[in-house]
């Protein structure tokens, strides 16, 4: 079925053990015609490739009140194509409540990273489904969820994704229902509002808007009543893939498979036509067809930028022509200031993407690439395989949707830093200009007028601190990943300090950009985590934070500060950090090196960073 040429190629690649290429083509096949019937083939292919392809392991339990087994292969296929090797355990039919409440259940024994609670209105709130809702029943259903969440959180630090309750396609009282001020759908929405409130009280608990998912695909079309009555499968065969994709929009950010930036082509991607040939008056972008499709894409890209995803241009063009259109075309929503990096030249795109990654201080695997030209997409897939290449449909009207639906752009937590990120990078461009105009490096650092604020983690910074441990790959000595829940627990533990650092300079408030976790063991104070966002590295902030840790440990009575450097593929920038700061290597194992510093004297702070500290307050 479908693209048999591509399938033959994949079979051939698998048979000849060309794993990387096979993985790439499997991903392409799934992007082009992914669906439940193809899932078995794609999953089997990825399983053959196995460890030859790098992927992140993630363990997921699905608790359910209906048949979900036919969705699991599609979910695994989606996960594989996003670089996640998903282990799935499906809970017993309708046993979700006891599994949540019983600490000895298979749910907890599986040690999941993420748990999905897939329930329907008719199972958890039959009276709401029948339309006989009262205030008591709304309270009862809410209290029931509250009990499950509380029990779950007491037993497990995993993420929990709860399905919201869906309204039925037809109200039980017919059109009369529409005459009531507090009708059936309103009662169900009230429960959903309560669920969101409950979720916000805890860390790592998220609501999946199942009602919106069903509505998006049409309430009458979503279900298959006959399959529900016979095999307890309420979702129609051709909608199973939509359920899998919706779960993926949560699992991708939870597994850390996110794009930090998107690099876009210009001609026939950001606007219709070719600027070098058609000129300003000839290209199409605006409120009317055919330019409206391109403007719709720009609006989605603006939304991504609001989420903290950086925008970049990667285009083969004459820079003058392209920049003029970017800056002056009246139909454009995106302007040069929205882009954190610009590569408009005649170089190969893979090379330009490498340069963009370097300029933005992010890994190549954190960049998504959008281009209407299948030849360029294939070139990037082959020459820069780390890049997430988005497969685009032929019709420009579908571009906006293709970007919007990509799970790599989803975020479950948004910090103030995320919203402001675009501006930080604009300030960075100004700083770079200053650095070139100042004679010496010290003069430059002094002229930045940096101020670093070090504080113990607290309720307001918990989400950002956990996010940094999840996302920071480069300047990170141990690359230990923590959830909000784990950070909160650690900060309450005696002998443990969880600190955050916020950096301001004359151009911008860089926000919360670093985390240090130390653990006192008698005479030794050990650094568990030390990480900084790359945008402040090389400006002595790291030295200031380390000096603070050393001096604080000394005040608490420690004789030595120790810390591991655990090498990964990405943290080379932190490799010499301890050596450069006077530490000596104490031991070396296959996992990494243990460094130590005798705390005989107070460590000096760099003179060009003004330190602001809050007394270490402990609950």
């Amino acid at each position, binding site marked *: 079925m479908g693209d048999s040429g591509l399938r033959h190629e994949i079979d051939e690649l698998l048979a000849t053990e060309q794993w990387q290429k096979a993985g790439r083509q499997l991903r392409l096949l799934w992007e082009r015609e992914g669906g439940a*019937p193809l899932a*078995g083939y794609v999953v089997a292919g990825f399983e053959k490739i196995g460890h030859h392809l790098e992927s992140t392991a993630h363990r997921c339990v699905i608790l359910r009140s209906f048949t979900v087994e036919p969705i699991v292969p599609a979910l695994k296929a989606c996960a594989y194509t996003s670089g996640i090797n998903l282990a799935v355990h499906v809970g017993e039919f309708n046993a979700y409540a006891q599994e949540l409440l019983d600490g000895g259940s298979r749910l907890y024994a599986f040690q999941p990273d993420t748990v999905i609670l897939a329930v329907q209105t008719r199972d958890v709130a039959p009276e709401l489904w029948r339309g006989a809702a009262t205030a008591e029943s709304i309270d009862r259903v809410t209290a029931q969820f509250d009990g499950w969440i509380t029990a779950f959180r007491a037993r497990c630090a995993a993420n929990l994704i709860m399905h919201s309750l869906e309204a039925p396609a037809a109200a039980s009282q017919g059109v009369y229902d529409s005459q009531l001020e507090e009708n059936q759908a309103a009662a169900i929405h009230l429960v959903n509002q309560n669920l969101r409130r409950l979720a916000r009280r805890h860390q790592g608990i998220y609501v999946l808007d199942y009602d919106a998912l069903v509505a998006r695909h049409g309430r009458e079309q979503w279900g298959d009543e006959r399959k529900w009555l016979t095999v307890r499968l309420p979702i129609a065969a051709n909608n199973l893939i939509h359920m899998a994709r919706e779960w993926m929009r949560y699992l991708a950010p939870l597994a850390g498979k996110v794009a930090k930036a998107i690099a876009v082509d210009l001609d026939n991607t950001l606007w219709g036509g070719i600027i070098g040939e058609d000129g300003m008056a000839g290209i199409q972008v605006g409120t009317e067809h055919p330019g409206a499709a391109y403007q719709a894409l720009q609006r989605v890209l603006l939304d991504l930028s609001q989420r903290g995803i950086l925008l970049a241009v990667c285009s083969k063009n004459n820079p003058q022509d392209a920049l003029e259109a970017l800056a002056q075309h009246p139909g454009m929503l995106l302007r040069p200031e929205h882009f954190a990096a610009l590569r408009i030249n005649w170089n190969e795109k893979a090379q330009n993407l490498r340069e963009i990654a370097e300029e933005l201080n992010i890994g190549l695997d954190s960049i998504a690439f959008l281009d209407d030209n299948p030849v360029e997409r294939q070139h990037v897939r082959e020459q820069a395989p780390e890049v997430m290449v988005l497969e685009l449909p032929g019709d420009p009207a579908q571009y906006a949707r293709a970007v919007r639906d990509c799970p790599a752009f989803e975020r479950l937590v948004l910090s103030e830093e995320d919203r402001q990120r675009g501006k930080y990078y604009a300030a960075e461009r100004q700083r770079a200009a200053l650095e070139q105009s100042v004679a010496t490096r010290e003069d430059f650092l002094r002229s930045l007028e940096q101020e670093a604020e070090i504080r113990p983690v607290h309720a307001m910074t918990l989400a950002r601190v956990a996010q940094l441990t999840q996302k920071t790959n480069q300047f990170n000595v141990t690359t230990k990943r923590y959830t909000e829940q784990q950070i909160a627990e650690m900060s309450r533990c005696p002998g443990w300090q969880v600190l955050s650092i916020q950096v301001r300079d004359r151009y911008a408030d860089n926000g919360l950009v670093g985390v240090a976790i130390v653990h006192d063991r008698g005479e030794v104070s050990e650094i568990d985590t030390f990480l900084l966002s790359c945008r402040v590295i090389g400006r002595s902030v790291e030295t200031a934070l380390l000096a603070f840790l050393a001096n604080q440990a000394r005040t608490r009575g420690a004789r030595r500060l120790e810390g591991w450097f655990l090498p990964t593929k990405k943290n080379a920038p932190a490799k010499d950090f301890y050596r450069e700061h006077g530490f000596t290597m104490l031991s070396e194992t296959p996992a990494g090196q243990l460094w130590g510093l005798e705390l005989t004297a107070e460590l000096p702070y760099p003179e060009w960073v003004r330190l602001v500290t809050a007394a270490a307050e402990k609950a």
Partner: protein
Amino acid sequence: MSGDILTEVRGVAADVFAVDAKTLNAASSPEQVAAWDSVQHLNLVLALEGKYGIQFEPEEMEGMKNLGDIAALLRTKIAAN
């Protein structure tokens, strides 16, 4: 409907069971194919319903003994459409 339905059914079943289509024939049954359990049976039915735009009756789902049966059943359902 052109083409050999049995060949198409074998192709769909091969994807669902994650085996080579060449290993399947009209006589292939749940007893012979290791992957063909009740969950995969449901997956196979769903895949065929999606592909041909038809619906099997619950009794028909239970009565499918092998791929040949399924192909024959499909032929009559497609003809009736």
